[in-house]
C-alpha cells in the first residue's frame, strides 16, 4: 500500500476532525454520540478529553483510531482522511499510525507478555528475525524486561498496563490513543502510568508523540496534558489550554 509521508502532508496537525459526527440508531431513535466536533490536535501535543459517561469521548477516540467510521465529517490523521480509507487501509492506520491502550489493558490472557507485545509485529508482517529484539527493547522501556515469559494473570494491574503500552508502541506509531488508562488502577499506580505516558510524550531524547487521552480524572489531565477538551452530549463544551 502506498502511504504518503505524514510529515509532509499533515500541516503540523497530528489529528484533525472537521464537523465529525457519529450517530447510532436504537429502534426508532437516532442517538448522536458525537455531534459535529471540529478539533485540531497538533503534532506532539498531549490532549486530554474529559467528560461524563456517555458524553462521546470514547466514541471520538475510536473514530480517531479508525476502529469506527464517522456518520459524517472527516478525520485526518497524519495527513490522511480516515473517512475515505478502505478497511485494509484503516487496519494499516491502526497498525502503523496509532497505538491504543485501554482501561482494561486488553492483553490476551492466553499469551505471555512477549507474545502479546509481538502480536502487532506479526500483524504488520515484521520479519521474524527482528521481532525478539524489538519486543525486548519495548518491554525494557516500560520496565518489564524481567517479566517477558509471564502471562497477564501473573502480572499486577500496573504491569499489565505497562505491557499494553509496550504493545501499543512496538510498531513505533506517531500517535498514542489512551482510553482511561488509569481507570482500573489505584492512584499510586495510576501516577506511575501517567509518568510513563508523559515520558512517551516528551522523551529525554528523540522525537515525542502526539497523545490523546480520555479520562475522568481532571487532576491527572491538568497535571500532564497540554490541553483539556471537555465533551458534553457529543459536543465540545469547554476547551482549556494549559501549556
Amino acid at each position: 500500500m502506498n502511504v504518503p509521508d505524514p510529515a509532509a502532508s499533515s500541516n503540523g496537525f497530528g489529528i484533525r476532525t472537521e464537523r465529525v459526527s457519529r450517530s447510532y440508531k436504537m429502534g426508532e431513535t437516532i442517538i448522536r454520540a458525537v455531534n459535529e466536533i471540529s478539533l485540531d490536535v497538533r503534532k506532539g501535543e498531549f490532549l486530554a478529553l474529559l467528560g461524563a459517561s456517555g458524553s462521546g469521548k470514547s466514541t471520538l477516540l475510536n473514530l480517531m483510531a479508525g476502529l469506527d467510521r464517522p456518520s459524517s465529517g472527516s478525520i485526518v490523521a497524519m495527513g490522511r482522511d480516515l473517512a475515505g480509507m478502505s478497511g485494509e487501509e484503516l487496519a494499516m492506520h491502526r497498525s502503523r499510525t496509532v497505538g491504543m491502550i485501554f482501561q482494561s489493558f486488553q492483553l490476551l490472557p492466553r499469551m505471555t507478555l512477549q507474545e502479546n507485545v509481538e502480536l502487532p509485529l506479526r500483524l504488520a508482517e515484521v520479519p521474524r528475525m527482528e521481532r525478539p529484539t524489538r519486543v525486548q527493547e519495548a518491554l525494557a522501556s516500560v520496565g518489564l524486561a524481567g517479566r517477558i515469559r509471564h502471562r497477564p494473570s501473573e502480572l499486577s494491574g500496573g504491569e499489565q498496563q505497562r505491557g499494553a503500552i509496550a504493545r501499543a508502541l512496538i510498531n513505533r506509531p506517531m500517535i498514542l490513543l489512551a482510553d482511561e488508562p488509569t481507570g482500573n488502577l489505584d492512584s499510586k499506580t495510576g501516577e506511575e502510568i501517567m509518568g510513563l505516558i508523559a515520558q512517551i510524550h516528551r522523551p529525554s531524547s528523540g522525537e515525542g508523540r502526539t497523545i490523546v487521552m480520555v479520562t475522568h480524572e481532571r487532576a491527572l489531565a491538568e497535571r500532564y496534558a497540554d490541553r483539556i477538551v471537555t465533551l458534553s452530549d457529543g459536543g465540545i463544551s469547554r476547551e482549556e489550554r494549559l501549556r
Partner: protein
Amino acid sequence: MKIGDLAELATRNLREAILRNSLTTLGISVGVASLVALLSLGVGLQQLVDRSVAKAGLFDIVSVRSRQSAPFGQPGGGRRNPRDAVDVAPPRPLDDAARKEIAGLPNVLEVNPEIRFTAEARVEPVSQLVMVSGMAPSSESSGTLDGLNGHFFSNADAREAIVQGDLAKRLVDVGKAPASLLGQEITLRFAQRQALPPPSDAAPGDPPNRAVGPDEEAMGFSIVPTEKKFRVVGVTPASDSGSGQVGFNNAGIYLPLAVAEKLEVVQQGDLRDISRAAPASGTRYAALNVRVTSPNAVAQIESSVTRMGFTTFSLIDVTRNLRTFFAIFDMFLGIFGSLALAVASLGIINTLVMAILERRREIGVLKALGAADRDVRRLFFAEAGVMGLAGGLFGVLLGWAIGRAIQVATMIYLKRQGVNAPNIWTVPWWLVAGAIVFSVVVSLASGIYPASRAAKLDPVEALRYE
C-alpha cells in the same frame, strides 16, 4: 499476516481449547476413516477382479474368428460386431494368408492359432475328460502361470504337459499333493483327423465319394481315435473358485502350441469348413489369438481386423463394463463414507462459532492492533484447516486400521469356510492423499461461515464484550 504466523497462531488457539478441538478433530478423523475404509475395500475388490483377469493374460489378447463360422440359425449366427465399420470387407476364410496379414498389423506381437479340443486324460488308473489347449511360448512370461509347480515346457516341440491344479488333484491318488503328478506320464486320447486318399487311390470296392469336389479334396478326412503320451512338467496352483480353469484358453491341460498343432486333432468348425466351397490358402484356422503390445492397442487391432472381414472378441469390452460398475460402486461407497465427514463438518462449524463467542474480545483486540478483516478471516480458516489436516492424517491411520481389521476378519471367516482368502483391501497412495486433501477442503468449507462472521465483528463492540 504471513502464513507462518497464521499457522502458528491457529495451532496455538486450538491448543487452548484442547478437549473441544480434539473431539472435533476426532469427528473429522472418524469421517475420513469411514471414507478410507470403505473406498479401500472398493478399490481392493476392483483390484482383485483386475488381478484375476490380468493374471489370465486376457487384456492384451484379441480372439479372431472367421465371420463365416457361426451359421444363421445358431446363437450369434450372422451377428455383426457393433463396432463393424461400413467399409467392412466381405467374410473370408481364416487361413495362412489372413494370419500373415494380421501379423503385419502395427502393435501385433504374435498371432497364434487357437487349438482346443476335448480329450480323455489318463494317469492309471484314473481317467478324466478334459479340455486341452495349445499354449504359446510367450505365455511363460505373461503371468498366466504365476505360482507354477515345476517348470514351463523345455522347448517348443517337447512332448510335455502342464496340468491345471484342480485337475491334478483328481488325477493323483487320494491324499497326495497335486504336485506329485510332476514327472509322471499322462495319456491323452483324442479324435484325430487323417487325410483321405485321393479318389484315384481308393480301393476298387470303395463307394465313390461324390460329395468331394476338386477344392475340398485336400480337406477331406476321416476321424480316428488316437492316444499320445506326455510328461507332466508343470502343475498350476488350484484356482480360488475350484473351477479348474486358468488362462486365456481355459483348459485343464496345456501342451506346447507347436505340438498341439501337429496332433491334427478334430476341432470345432472342421465340419463347417469341409461343407464350405470358399477357397482357402493353406491351413484354415478355427480361431487365431492375436497378442498385442498393450491393452491400449486392443481397440485399434479389433477395428483393423474387423475391417479385414473377421469378427473379434476381447475382454476389454467386458472389463469396460466392469470398470463402470466399480466406478459407480466406489462412488456410492464414497458417498456413504462422506456422510460421516459431512456430520463432522457441522462439528467444525459449531466449534468455530463457539470460539468466536469466546474470543470476541480477542478479535476486537486483534483489530485494534491492526488486523484487517481479512487477517481475522484467514486466522479462523487456518484453524479449520489445521483441524482438517490433523483429522485427515489421523483419519487415514484409523481407516487403514479399520480396513486391515475387516481384511483379517474376512480372511479368518473365509478360511473357516474352506475358501482361499484373497486380499480384498488396498489403500493406494492416491486414496491417502485424496482423503487428506478432501478432509482439509471440507474443513475449510466448514470454516467459511464462522470465519466471515468473525471477520465482520465490529471491533468497538467486541472490545466492550465481557
